Protein backbone atom coordinates (compact mmCIF):
# COMPACT_ATOMS: atom_id res chain seq x y z
CA UNK A 1 0.00 0.00 0.00
CA UNK A 2 1.42 3.40 -0.91
CA UNK A 3 2.37 5.68 1.97
CA UNK A 4 0.68 8.68 0.44
CA UNK A 5 -2.25 8.79 -1.93
CA UNK A 6 -3.96 11.72 -3.52
CA UNK A 7 -7.33 10.66 -4.87
CA UNK A 8 -9.33 12.63 -7.37
CA UNK A 9 -8.18 15.99 -6.11
CA UNK A 10 -9.71 19.19 -7.41
CA UNK A 11 -7.98 22.29 -6.15
CA UNK A 12 -7.92 25.97 -6.96
CA UNK A 13 -10.00 29.02 -6.16
CA UNK A 14 -12.46 31.34 -7.80
CA UNK A 15 -12.18 30.77 -11.53
CA UNK A 16 -8.71 29.35 -11.27
CA UNK A 17 -8.92 25.55 -11.02
CA UNK A 18 -5.39 24.20 -10.98
CA UNK A 19 -5.88 20.52 -10.35
CA UNK A 20 -8.80 18.51 -11.63
CA UNK A 21 -9.30 14.87 -10.86
CA UNK A 22 -5.66 14.66 -9.81
CA UNK A 23 -4.14 11.38 -8.56
CA UNK A 24 -0.76 10.57 -7.08
CA UNK A 25 0.80 7.64 -5.24
CA UNK A 26 4.05 7.65 -3.32
CA UNK A 27 5.63 4.60 -1.70
CA UNK A 28 7.43 4.64 1.61
CA UNK A 29 11.07 5.58 1.40
CA UNK A 30 10.75 6.90 -2.13
CA UNK A 31 12.26 10.15 -3.30
CA UNK A 32 9.66 11.49 -5.72
CA UNK A 33 10.04 14.70 -7.69
CA UNK A 34 7.29 16.77 -9.21
CA UNK A 35 8.79 18.36 -12.29
CA UNK A 36 7.26 20.96 -14.54
CA UNK A 37 7.29 24.59 -15.55
CA UNK A 38 5.52 27.40 -13.64
CA UNK A 39 1.80 27.08 -13.33
CA UNK A 40 1.70 23.31 -13.89
CA UNK A 41 0.34 22.71 -10.40
CA UNK A 42 3.34 21.11 -8.71
CA UNK A 43 3.54 23.66 -5.91
CA UNK A 44 -0.22 23.54 -5.42
CA UNK A 45 0.03 19.78 -5.00
CA UNK A 46 2.85 20.05 -2.50
CA UNK A 47 1.05 22.68 -0.44
CA UNK A 48 -2.07 20.54 -0.39
CA UNK A 49 -0.11 17.62 0.96
CA UNK A 50 1.53 19.86 3.55
CA UNK A 51 -1.81 21.19 4.72
CA UNK A 52 -1.40 24.84 3.80
CA UNK A 53 -4.57 24.63 1.79
CA UNK A 54 -7.46 22.22 1.45
CA UNK A 55 -8.70 20.62 -1.75
CA UNK A 56 -12.13 21.52 -3.08
CA UNK A 57 -12.80 17.87 -3.77
CA UNK A 58 -11.03 14.58 -3.30
CA UNK A 59 -9.07 13.04 -0.47
CA UNK A 60 -5.54 12.66 0.82
CA UNK A 61 -4.71 9.33 2.39
CA UNK A 62 -1.58 8.93 4.48
CA UNK A 63 -0.56 5.60 5.98
CA UNK A 64 -4.09 4.40 5.37
CA UNK A 65 -5.69 7.34 7.21
CA UNK A 66 -7.72 10.05 5.56
CA UNK A 67 -5.91 13.25 6.47
CA UNK A 68 -7.76 15.59 4.12
CA UNK A 69 -9.18 17.60 6.98
CA UNK A 70 -6.39 17.18 9.47
CA UNK A 71 -5.11 20.70 10.33
CA UNK A 72 -1.64 21.81 9.32
CA UNK A 73 -0.06 21.66 12.73
CA UNK A 74 -1.00 18.03 13.26
CA UNK A 75 0.33 16.52 10.08
CA UNK A 76 3.94 16.05 11.16
CA UNK A 77 5.40 16.67 7.70
CA UNK A 78 8.66 18.57 7.32
CA UNK A 79 8.52 21.43 4.83
CA UNK A 80 11.51 23.16 3.30
CA UNK A 81 10.63 26.50 1.70
CA UNK A 82 12.23 28.06 -1.34
CA UNK A 83 12.97 31.13 0.74
CA UNK A 84 13.93 28.97 3.73
CA UNK A 85 11.46 30.84 5.98
CA UNK A 86 13.89 30.95 8.88
CA UNK A 87 12.69 32.87 11.92
CA UNK A 88 14.82 36.02 11.81
CA UNK A 89 14.51 36.82 15.48
CA UNK A 90 15.76 33.40 16.63
CA UNK A 91 19.22 31.87 16.63
CA UNK A 92 20.04 28.86 14.51
CA UNK A 93 19.62 26.66 17.55
CA UNK A 94 16.18 28.07 18.36
CA UNK A 95 15.12 27.79 14.74
CA UNK A 96 16.05 24.15 14.54
CA UNK A 97 14.66 23.41 17.99
CA UNK A 98 11.31 25.04 17.22
CA UNK A 99 9.53 21.92 16.10
CA UNK A 100 10.84 20.01 19.08
CA UNK A 101 9.66 22.74 21.39
CA UNK A 102 6.19 22.44 19.92
CA UNK A 103 6.31 18.74 20.69
CA UNK A 104 7.39 19.49 24.25
CA UNK A 105 10.56 17.46 23.96
CA UNK A 106 12.55 17.65 27.23
CA UNK A 107 15.49 20.07 27.20
CA UNK A 108 18.34 17.60 27.33
CA UNK A 109 17.00 15.43 24.57
CA UNK A 110 16.16 18.49 22.52
CA UNK A 111 19.68 19.80 22.78
CA UNK A 112 21.17 16.49 21.70
CA UNK A 113 18.89 16.11 18.72
CA UNK A 114 19.49 19.65 17.55
CA UNK A 115 23.26 19.39 17.85
CA UNK A 116 23.28 16.02 16.09
CA UNK A 117 21.23 17.43 13.26
CA UNK A 118 23.48 20.47 12.94
CA UNK A 119 26.44 18.13 12.67
CA UNK A 120 24.64 16.15 10.02
CA UNK A 121 24.16 19.24 7.87
CA UNK A 122 27.67 20.43 8.59
CA UNK A 123 26.73 23.49 10.65
CA UNK A 124 28.45 22.68 13.91
CA UNK A 125 29.43 25.84 15.74
CA UNK A 126 26.67 27.94 14.19
CA UNK A 127 24.07 27.44 16.93
CA UNK A 128 24.23 30.97 18.24
CA UNK A 129 24.28 32.75 14.93
CA UNK A 130 21.31 34.60 13.52
CA UNK A 131 20.00 33.85 10.03
CA UNK A 132 20.96 37.29 8.76
CA UNK A 133 24.57 36.56 9.58
CA UNK A 134 24.71 33.53 7.32
CA UNK A 135 25.09 32.80 3.63
CA UNK A 136 22.36 31.39 1.40
CA UNK A 137 23.80 27.91 1.43
CA UNK A 138 24.11 27.92 5.21
CA UNK A 139 20.56 29.13 5.64
CA UNK A 140 19.36 26.39 3.36
CA UNK A 141 20.99 23.82 5.59
CA UNK A 142 19.37 25.33 8.66
CA UNK A 143 15.99 25.06 6.95
CA UNK A 144 16.74 21.45 6.13
CA UNK A 145 17.85 20.67 9.68
CA UNK A 146 14.81 22.36 11.15
CA UNK A 147 12.44 20.27 9.06
CA UNK A 148 14.25 16.99 9.57
CA UNK A 149 14.92 17.16 13.29
CA UNK A 150 11.26 16.48 14.08
CA UNK A 151 11.63 13.07 12.42
CA UNK A 152 8.70 13.69 10.13
CA UNK A 153 6.74 11.01 8.38
CA UNK A 154 7.24 12.83 5.13
CA UNK A 155 9.60 15.53 3.88
CA UNK A 156 8.33 18.12 1.43
CA UNK A 157 10.68 20.33 -0.57
CA UNK A 158 9.50 23.39 -2.46
CA UNK A 159 12.28 24.29 -4.94
CA UNK A 160 14.74 24.54 -2.06
CA UNK A 161 17.82 25.11 -4.21
CA UNK A 162 16.48 27.73 -6.64
CA UNK A 163 18.07 30.61 -4.82
CA UNK A 164 21.55 29.17 -4.78
CA UNK A 165 24.27 29.46 -7.41
CA UNK A 166 24.91 26.56 -9.81
CA UNK A 167 27.88 24.97 -8.06
CA UNK A 168 26.20 25.07 -4.67
CA UNK A 169 23.05 23.65 -6.13
CA UNK A 170 24.89 20.57 -7.37
CA UNK A 171 26.60 20.08 -4.03
CA UNK A 172 23.45 20.58 -2.02
CA UNK A 173 21.31 18.22 -4.07
CA UNK A 174 23.82 15.47 -3.47
CA UNK A 175 23.70 16.26 0.26
CA UNK A 176 19.96 16.13 0.38
CA UNK A 177 19.87 12.81 -1.40
CA UNK A 178 22.57 11.39 0.84
CA UNK A 179 20.77 12.40 4.02
CA UNK A 180 17.49 11.06 2.70
CA UNK A 181 19.02 7.71 2.08
CA UNK A 182 20.84 7.70 5.39
CA UNK A 183 17.81 8.61 7.46
CA UNK A 184 15.42 6.75 5.18
CA UNK A 185 12.55 9.25 5.02
CA UNK A 186 10.05 9.62 2.19
CA UNK A 187 10.49 12.82 0.21
CA UNK A 188 8.41 14.76 -2.29
CA UNK A 189 10.50 17.31 -4.13
CA UNK A 190 9.20 20.09 -6.37
CA UNK A 191 11.49 21.64 -8.96
CA UNK A 192 11.60 23.01 -12.47
CA UNK A 193 15.18 21.92 -13.03
CA UNK A 194 15.19 18.66 -14.98
CA UNK A 195 18.81 17.76 -14.36
CA UNK A 196 18.46 18.27 -10.63
CA UNK A 197 15.48 16.05 -10.22
CA UNK A 198 16.73 13.33 -12.50
CA UNK A 199 19.96 13.23 -10.55
CA UNK A 200 18.44 12.49 -7.17
CA UNK A 201 14.96 11.02 -7.56
CA UNK A 202 13.66 7.51 -7.45
CA UNK A 203 10.63 8.55 -9.40
CA UNK A 204 9.77 11.66 -11.35
CA UNK A 205 6.26 12.90 -12.06
CA UNK A 206 6.24 15.32 -14.95
CA UNK A 207 3.35 17.70 -14.64
CA UNK A 208 1.75 19.86 -17.28
CA UNK A 209 -1.31 22.04 -16.69
CA UNK A 210 -2.49 20.24 -13.61
CA UNK A 211 -1.99 16.72 -14.94
CA UNK A 212 0.78 14.16 -14.49
CA UNK A 213 1.87 13.28 -18.00
CA UNK A 214 4.25 10.54 -16.95
CA UNK A 215 5.46 9.19 -13.64
CA UNK A 216 8.36 6.78 -13.78
CA UNK A 217 12.02 6.34 -12.94
CA UNK A 218 14.29 8.97 -14.41
CA UNK A 219 15.89 6.42 -16.74
CA UNK A 220 12.57 5.25 -18.14
CA UNK A 221 11.40 8.77 -18.76
CA UNK A 222 14.68 9.76 -20.26
CA UNK A 223 14.72 6.87 -22.64
CA UNK A 224 11.02 6.46 -23.20
CA UNK A 225 9.04 9.70 -22.96
CA UNK A 226 5.36 9.08 -23.44
CA UNK A 227 4.35 12.44 -24.78
CA UNK A 228 5.86 15.05 -27.04
CA UNK A 229 5.86 17.49 -24.13
CA UNK A 230 7.94 15.16 -22.05
CA UNK A 231 10.20 14.31 -24.93
CA UNK A 232 11.02 17.95 -25.44
CA UNK A 233 11.48 18.34 -21.72
CA UNK A 234 14.10 15.62 -21.54
CA UNK A 235 16.10 16.75 -24.49
CA UNK A 236 14.55 15.38 -27.65
CA UNK A 237 14.77 18.12 -30.18
CA UNK A 238 13.98 16.40 -33.44
CA UNK A 239 10.45 15.37 -34.30
CA UNK A 240 9.10 13.85 -37.48
CA UNK A 241 5.96 11.99 -38.46
CA UNK A 242 5.83 8.33 -39.43
CA UNK A 243 2.96 6.43 -41.01
CA UNK A 244 2.54 2.69 -41.12
CA UNK A 245 2.12 1.42 -44.62
CA UNK A 246 2.31 -2.08 -45.66
CA UNK A 247 4.14 -3.30 -42.58
CA UNK A 248 6.83 -0.60 -42.67
CA UNK A 249 7.12 2.92 -41.24
CA UNK A 250 7.40 5.64 -43.82
CA UNK A 251 8.31 9.28 -43.41
CA UNK A 252 6.30 12.03 -45.07
CA UNK A 253 8.69 11.89 -48.00
CA UNK A 254 8.20 8.17 -48.35
CA UNK A 255 11.53 6.99 -47.00
CA UNK A 256 11.36 3.85 -44.87
CA UNK A 257 12.59 4.02 -41.28
CA UNK A 258 13.46 1.01 -39.21
CA UNK A 259 12.27 1.22 -35.58
CA UNK A 260 13.24 -1.10 -32.78
CA UNK A 261 10.62 0.13 -30.28
CA UNK A 262 7.22 -1.34 -30.51
CA UNK A 263 4.37 0.98 -30.67
CA UNK A 264 0.67 1.11 -31.32
CA UNK A 265 -1.36 2.84 -33.89
CA UNK A 266 -0.66 3.57 -37.49
CA UNK A 267 0.68 7.07 -37.11
CA UNK A 268 3.37 8.16 -34.69
CA UNK A 269 5.49 11.14 -34.00
CA UNK A 270 9.04 9.93 -33.86
CA UNK A 271 11.72 11.74 -31.97
CA UNK A 272 15.44 11.45 -31.65
CA UNK A 273 18.14 13.24 -29.71
CA UNK A 274 20.72 15.40 -31.47
CA UNK A 275 23.48 13.18 -30.11
CA UNK A 276 21.91 10.15 -31.71
CA UNK A 277 21.91 11.51 -35.25
CA UNK A 278 24.91 10.59 -37.36
CA UNK A 279 26.19 13.02 -39.95
CA UNK A 280 28.26 12.19 -42.95
CA UNK A 281 28.72 12.80 -46.68
CA UNK A 282 25.76 12.11 -48.99
CA UNK A 283 27.10 8.66 -49.85
CA UNK A 284 27.81 7.58 -46.26
CA UNK A 285 25.33 4.79 -46.48
CA UNK A 286 23.73 5.14 -43.07
CA UNK A 287 20.77 3.15 -42.01
CA UNK A 288 17.65 5.35 -41.81
CA UNK A 289 19.37 7.84 -44.02
CA UNK A 290 17.97 11.34 -44.56
CA UNK A 291 19.68 13.73 -46.96
CA UNK A 292 20.03 17.34 -45.99
CA UNK A 293 21.85 20.65 -46.19
CA UNK A 294 23.75 22.24 -43.30
CA UNK A 295 22.19 25.54 -42.24
CA UNK A 296 24.12 26.30 -39.11
CA UNK A 297 27.41 24.94 -37.90
CA UNK A 298 28.57 25.76 -34.39
CA UNK A 299 31.87 24.63 -32.95
CA UNK A 300 31.40 23.75 -29.28
CA UNK A 301 34.84 22.42 -28.47
CA UNK A 302 34.43 18.71 -28.09
CA UNK A 303 31.33 18.68 -30.22
CA UNK A 304 29.94 20.48 -33.20
CA UNK A 305 26.31 21.49 -33.30
CA UNK A 306 24.55 21.49 -36.65
CA UNK A 307 21.12 22.58 -37.82
CA UNK A 308 20.40 20.56 -40.96
CA UNK A 309 17.51 21.15 -43.31
CA UNK A 310 15.88 18.04 -44.62
CA UNK A 311 12.76 17.12 -46.52
CA UNK A 312 11.09 16.01 -43.34
CA UNK A 313 12.04 19.01 -41.19
CA UNK A 314 14.96 20.69 -39.60
CA UNK A 315 17.24 18.46 -37.53
CA UNK A 316 19.53 19.42 -34.68
CA UNK A 317 22.64 17.29 -34.74
CA UNK A 318 25.47 17.01 -32.25
CA UNK A 319 28.57 15.33 -33.61
CA UNK A 320 32.15 14.78 -32.60
CA UNK A 321 34.49 17.21 -34.11
CA UNK A 322 36.56 14.90 -36.25
CA UNK A 323 35.08 16.42 -39.36
CA UNK A 324 33.44 19.81 -39.48
CA UNK A 325 30.87 20.46 -42.18
CA UNK A 326 30.44 24.04 -43.22
CA UNK A 327 27.28 25.91 -44.01
CA UNK A 328 25.67 24.86 -47.23
CA UNK A 329 27.38 21.47 -47.27
CA UNK A 330 25.26 18.59 -48.55
CA UNK A 331 25.19 15.81 -46.02
CA UNK A 332 23.27 12.73 -45.12
CA UNK A 333 21.98 12.06 -41.63
CA UNK A 334 21.72 8.64 -40.09
CA UNK A 335 19.03 8.09 -37.44
CA UNK A 336 20.21 5.37 -35.11
CA UNK A 337 17.37 2.90 -35.10
CA UNK A 338 17.17 2.03 -31.42
CA UNK A 339 17.35 5.69 -30.47
CA UNK A 340 14.22 6.67 -32.33
CA UNK A 341 11.40 6.92 -29.84
CA UNK A 342 7.94 6.71 -31.29
CA UNK A 343 5.12 8.59 -29.60
CA UNK A 344 1.60 7.50 -30.58
CA UNK A 345 -0.29 10.34 -32.20
CA UNK A 346 -2.98 10.07 -29.56
CA UNK A 347 -0.49 11.20 -26.99
CA UNK A 348 0.76 14.26 -28.80
Amino acid sequence: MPLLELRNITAGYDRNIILRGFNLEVEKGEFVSLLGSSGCGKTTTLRLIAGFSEPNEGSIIFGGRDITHVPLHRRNFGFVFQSYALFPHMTVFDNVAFGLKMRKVPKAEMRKRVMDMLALVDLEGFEDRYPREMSGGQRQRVALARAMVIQPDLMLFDEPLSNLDAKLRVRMRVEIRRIQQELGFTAIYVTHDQEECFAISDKVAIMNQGVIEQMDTPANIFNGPKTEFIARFVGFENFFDLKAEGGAWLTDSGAPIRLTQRTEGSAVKACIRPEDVLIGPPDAGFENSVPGEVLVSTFLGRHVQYNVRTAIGEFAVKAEQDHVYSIGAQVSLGLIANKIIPIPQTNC
Partner: protein
Amino acid sequence: MKKRGMGRYIFLALIAPGVLFITVFMLIPLFWVILSTFQEGGSFSLNNYISLLDSVYFRQVFGRSVRLSLLSTGLCALLGFPAAYYISRYSRHKGMMMALAIFPMFTSPVIRSFSWMVILGRKGIVNQALVGLGLFARPQSLLYNEFSMTVGFVQLFLPQMILSLLGVMDAIPTDLTEAAGSLGATRLVAFLRIVFPLSVSGLVTGAVLVFTGCMTAYTTPQLLGATDTQVLSTMVYQYAMSLRDWAQASAVAMVMIVVTLAVSTLFNRLSRRINPLAA
Protein backbone atom coordinates in the same frame (compact mmCIF):
# COMPACT_ATOMS: atom_id res chain seq x y z
CA MET B 1 36.78 68.75 -6.59
CA LYS B 2 34.89 71.87 -7.41
CA LYS B 3 31.75 69.88 -8.13
CA ARG B 4 31.82 68.24 -4.74
CA GLY B 5 32.10 71.53 -2.94
CA MET B 6 29.21 72.97 -4.90
CA GLY B 7 27.02 70.03 -4.13
CA ARG B 8 27.57 70.43 -0.46
CA TYR B 9 26.65 74.09 -0.50
CA ILE B 10 23.53 73.40 -2.46
CA PHE B 11 22.53 70.74 0.05
CA LEU B 12 23.02 73.11 2.95
CA ALA B 13 21.13 75.84 1.16
CA LEU B 14 18.20 73.53 0.60
CA ILE B 15 17.85 72.35 4.15
CA ALA B 16 18.60 75.74 5.70
CA PRO B 17 15.04 77.15 5.47
CA GLY B 18 13.58 74.08 7.16
CA VAL B 19 16.15 74.03 9.91
CA LEU B 20 15.76 77.74 10.44
CA PHE B 21 12.01 77.43 10.64
CA ILE B 22 12.14 74.65 13.22
CA THR B 23 14.76 76.45 15.26
CA VAL B 24 12.98 79.76 15.34
CA PHE B 25 9.44 78.53 15.76
CA MET B 26 9.92 75.44 17.80
CA LEU B 27 13.29 75.04 19.47
CA ILE B 28 13.76 78.58 20.67
CA PRO B 29 10.23 79.04 22.07
CA LEU B 30 10.45 75.60 23.68
CA PHE B 31 13.76 76.46 25.27
CA TRP B 32 12.35 79.77 26.43
CA VAL B 33 9.36 78.09 28.01
CA ILE B 34 11.61 75.56 29.74
CA LEU B 35 13.71 78.38 31.15
CA SER B 36 10.66 80.31 32.29
CA THR B 37 9.44 77.44 34.41
CA PHE B 38 12.60 77.67 36.46
CA GLN B 39 12.07 81.32 37.20
CA GLU B 40 9.95 83.20 39.62
CA GLY B 41 9.91 86.95 39.60
CA GLY B 42 12.94 87.04 37.39
CA SER B 43 15.30 84.88 39.41
CA PHE B 44 16.01 81.17 39.44
CA SER B 45 13.50 79.22 41.48
CA LEU B 46 12.07 75.76 41.66
CA ASN B 47 8.89 77.07 43.22
CA ASN B 48 6.76 76.42 40.19
CA TYR B 49 7.51 72.75 40.44
CA ILE B 50 7.51 72.56 44.21
CA SER B 51 4.05 74.07 44.45
CA LEU B 52 2.83 71.55 41.92
CA LEU B 53 4.27 68.55 43.68
CA ASP B 54 2.92 69.81 46.99
CA SER B 55 -0.61 69.92 45.73
CA VAL B 56 -2.66 66.81 46.41
CA TYR B 57 -4.81 67.80 43.53
CA PHE B 58 -1.87 67.84 41.12
CA ARG B 59 -0.60 64.48 42.26
CA GLN B 60 -4.00 62.95 41.70
CA VAL B 61 -4.33 64.54 38.29
CA PHE B 62 -0.84 63.40 37.35
CA GLY B 63 -1.46 59.86 38.50
CA ARG B 64 -4.72 59.76 36.65
CA SER B 65 -3.21 61.02 33.41
CA VAL B 66 -0.45 58.43 33.45
CA ARG B 67 -2.73 55.65 34.60
CA LEU B 68 -5.43 56.26 31.98
CA SER B 69 -2.88 56.75 29.24
CA LEU B 70 -1.15 53.48 30.06
CA LEU B 71 -4.46 51.68 30.34
CA SER B 72 -5.66 53.03 27.03
CA THR B 73 -2.36 52.10 25.40
CA GLY B 74 -2.70 48.58 26.72
CA LEU B 75 -6.26 48.28 25.49
CA CYS B 76 -5.33 49.63 22.09
CA ALA B 77 -2.56 47.04 21.84
CA LEU B 78 -4.89 44.25 22.87
CA LEU B 79 -7.60 45.26 20.44
CA GLY B 80 -5.30 46.49 17.73
CA PHE B 81 -3.24 43.33 17.33
CA PRO B 82 -6.01 40.98 16.27
CA ALA B 83 -7.54 43.68 14.11
CA ALA B 84 -4.26 44.44 12.33
CA TYR B 85 -3.47 40.73 11.99
CA TYR B 86 -6.83 40.05 10.46
CA ILE B 87 -6.57 42.94 8.02
CA SER B 88 -3.02 41.97 7.10
CA ARG B 89 -3.51 38.26 6.62
CA TYR B 90 -7.08 37.35 6.03
CA SER B 91 -8.93 40.28 4.66
CA ARG B 92 -10.10 40.18 1.06
CA HIS B 93 -10.99 43.85 0.97
CA LYS B 94 -7.98 45.33 2.65
CA GLY B 95 -8.54 48.90 1.55
CA MET B 96 -12.07 48.99 2.82
CA MET B 97 -11.10 47.43 6.13
CA MET B 98 -8.40 50.00 6.61
CA ALA B 99 -10.81 52.81 5.84
CA LEU B 100 -13.21 51.49 8.46
CA ALA B 101 -10.41 51.19 10.98
CA ILE B 102 -9.24 54.77 10.67
CA PHE B 103 -12.68 56.26 10.33
CA PRO B 104 -12.85 57.53 13.96
CA MET B 105 -9.94 59.81 13.25
CA PHE B 106 -12.11 61.91 11.00
CA THR B 107 -15.06 62.57 13.28
CA SER B 108 -15.21 65.75 15.32
CA PRO B 109 -14.85 65.56 19.12
CA VAL B 110 -18.24 67.10 19.70
CA ILE B 111 -19.96 64.49 17.57
CA ARG B 112 -18.03 61.74 19.26
CA SER B 113 -18.96 62.99 22.70
CA PHE B 114 -22.60 63.24 21.76
CA SER B 115 -22.53 59.74 20.30
CA TRP B 116 -21.07 58.37 23.49
CA MET B 117 -23.80 60.11 25.41
CA VAL B 118 -26.33 58.26 23.32
CA ILE B 119 -24.54 54.96 23.87
CA LEU B 120 -23.30 55.20 27.45
CA GLY B 121 -25.75 57.68 28.90
CA ARG B 122 -28.21 57.07 31.66
CA LYS B 123 -30.85 56.44 29.02
CA GLY B 124 -28.39 55.17 26.49
CA ILE B 125 -28.34 51.91 24.56
CA VAL B 126 -25.99 50.09 26.91
CA ASN B 127 -27.92 50.96 30.01
CA GLN B 128 -31.17 50.08 28.37
CA ALA B 129 -29.73 46.67 27.61
CA LEU B 130 -28.28 46.22 31.09
CA VAL B 131 -31.51 47.09 32.84
CA GLY B 132 -33.72 45.48 30.25
CA LEU B 133 -31.87 42.18 30.58
CA GLY B 134 -32.24 42.41 34.31
CA LEU B 135 -28.50 42.57 34.98
CA PHE B 136 -28.88 45.76 36.95
CA ALA B 137 -31.79 47.33 38.77
CA ARG B 138 -30.87 50.90 37.97
CA PRO B 139 -28.96 52.48 35.08
CA GLN B 140 -25.23 52.49 35.70
CA SER B 141 -23.11 55.57 35.64
CA LEU B 142 -21.05 54.89 32.56
CA LEU B 143 -20.38 58.45 31.54
CA TYR B 144 -18.35 61.37 32.89
CA ASN B 145 -15.90 59.18 34.66
CA GLU B 146 -12.61 57.40 34.04
CA PHE B 147 -14.45 54.60 32.27
CA SER B 148 -15.93 56.84 29.61
CA MET B 149 -12.68 58.73 29.21
CA THR B 150 -10.81 55.49 28.59
CA VAL B 151 -13.45 54.38 26.11
CA GLY B 152 -13.11 57.73 24.37
CA PHE B 153 -9.33 57.47 24.25
CA VAL B 154 -9.38 53.97 22.88
CA GLN B 155 -11.87 54.88 20.19
CA LEU B 156 -9.80 57.86 19.20
CA PHE B 157 -6.37 56.25 19.16
CA LEU B 158 -7.02 52.67 18.15
CA PRO B 159 -6.62 53.62 14.48
CA GLN B 160 -3.07 54.82 15.19
CA MET B 161 -2.20 51.51 16.73
CA ILE B 162 -3.77 49.51 13.94
CA LEU B 163 -1.94 51.48 11.28
CA SER B 164 1.42 51.13 13.02
CA LEU B 165 0.97 47.42 13.46
CA LEU B 166 -0.32 46.94 9.96
CA GLY B 167 2.79 48.48 8.47
CA VAL B 168 5.01 46.07 10.32
CA MET B 169 2.83 43.01 9.88
CA ASP B 170 2.63 43.41 6.15
CA ALA B 171 6.39 43.08 6.12
CA ILE B 172 6.32 39.69 7.80
CA PRO B 173 6.43 37.02 5.07
CA THR B 174 3.50 34.59 5.16
CA ASP B 175 5.75 31.62 4.89
CA LEU B 176 7.05 32.26 8.40
CA THR B 177 3.70 31.45 9.94
CA GLU B 178 3.31 28.57 7.50
CA ALA B 179 6.69 27.23 8.56
CA ALA B 180 5.71 27.50 12.20
CA GLY B 181 2.48 25.68 11.45
CA SER B 182 4.26 22.90 9.59
CA LEU B 183 6.46 22.45 12.66
CA GLY B 184 3.46 21.95 14.89
CA ALA B 185 2.50 25.44 16.06
CA THR B 186 -1.20 26.21 16.33
CA ARG B 187 -2.33 29.54 14.92
CA LEU B 188 -2.22 31.07 18.38
CA VAL B 189 1.27 29.81 19.14
CA ALA B 190 2.49 30.95 15.74
CA PHE B 191 1.09 34.38 16.49
CA LEU B 192 2.69 34.59 19.92
CA ARG B 193 6.07 33.25 18.93
CA ILE B 194 6.52 34.56 15.42
CA VAL B 195 4.19 37.39 14.54
CA PHE B 196 4.19 39.13 17.88
CA PRO B 197 7.96 39.40 18.36
CA LEU B 198 8.39 40.52 14.77
CA SER B 199 5.67 43.15 15.18
CA VAL B 200 7.14 44.65 18.29
CA SER B 201 8.67 47.61 16.54
CA GLY B 202 5.25 48.49 15.17
CA LEU B 203 3.79 47.97 18.59
CA VAL B 204 6.27 50.37 20.11
CA THR B 205 5.60 53.02 17.50
CA GLY B 206 1.90 52.61 18.04
CA ALA B 207 2.22 52.60 21.82
CA VAL B 208 4.26 55.77 21.82
CA LEU B 209 1.73 57.49 19.56
CA VAL B 210 -1.21 56.32 21.64
CA PHE B 211 0.38 57.15 24.97
CA THR B 212 1.45 60.59 23.84
CA GLY B 213 -1.96 61.19 22.33
CA CYS B 214 -3.77 60.21 25.51
CA MET B 215 -1.50 62.26 27.72
CA THR B 216 -2.02 65.37 25.64
CA ALA B 217 -5.64 64.91 24.53
CA TYR B 218 -7.86 67.75 25.59
CA THR B 219 -11.31 67.51 24.06
CA THR B 220 -11.95 63.90 25.03
CA PRO B 221 -11.37 64.38 28.76
CA GLN B 222 -13.16 67.70 28.50
CA LEU B 223 -16.31 66.24 27.03
CA LEU B 224 -16.28 62.74 28.47
CA GLY B 225 -14.73 63.43 31.85
CA ALA B 226 -15.90 65.23 34.96
CA THR B 227 -14.33 67.79 37.27
CA ASP B 228 -13.08 65.04 39.53
CA THR B 229 -11.42 63.25 36.65
CA GLN B 230 -9.20 66.04 35.45
CA VAL B 231 -6.07 65.23 33.53
CA LEU B 232 -2.90 67.18 32.90
CA SER B 233 -4.06 68.73 29.66
CA THR B 234 -7.27 70.13 31.12
CA MET B 235 -5.17 71.37 34.01
CA VAL B 236 -2.87 73.25 31.66
CA TYR B 237 -5.92 74.80 30.03
CA GLN B 238 -7.32 75.91 33.37
CA TYR B 239 -4.07 77.53 34.43
CA ALA B 240 -3.41 79.14 31.10
CA MET B 241 -6.84 80.23 29.95
CA SER B 242 -8.99 80.63 33.02
CA LEU B 243 -6.42 81.82 35.52
CA ARG B 244 -3.79 83.19 33.14
CA ASP B 245 -1.09 81.72 35.35
CA TRP B 246 1.39 81.04 32.56
CA ALA B 247 4.15 79.94 34.88
CA GLN B 248 2.14 77.13 36.40
CA ALA B 249 0.73 76.13 33.05
CA SER B 250 4.23 75.86 31.62
CA ALA B 251 5.39 73.82 34.58
CA VAL B 252 2.56 71.34 34.06
CA ALA B 253 3.36 71.22 30.36
CA MET B 254 7.00 70.46 31.17
CA VAL B 255 5.91 67.58 33.37
CA MET B 256 3.86 66.24 30.47
CA ILE B 257 6.83 66.45 28.12
CA VAL B 258 9.20 64.72 30.53
CA VAL B 259 6.78 61.90 31.32
CA THR B 260 6.01 61.30 27.66
CA LEU B 261 9.71 61.11 26.79
CA ALA B 262 10.43 58.82 29.72
CA VAL B 263 7.66 56.39 28.88
CA SER B 264 8.59 56.33 25.20
CA THR B 265 12.16 55.42 26.08
CA LEU B 266 10.88 52.72 28.38
CA PHE B 267 8.75 51.21 25.62
CA ASN B 268 11.75 51.13 23.32
CA ARG B 269 13.86 49.34 25.89
CA LEU B 270 11.16 46.77 26.49
CA SER B 271 10.80 46.06 22.82
CA ARG B 272 14.43 45.17 22.53
CA ARG B 273 13.91 42.46 25.12
CA ILE B 274 11.19 40.83 23.11
CA ASN B 275 12.89 41.04 19.76
CA PRO B 276 16.64 41.55 19.75
CA LEU B 277 16.41 42.71 16.17
CA ALA B 278 13.92 45.49 16.94
CA ALA B 279 15.22 48.81 15.78
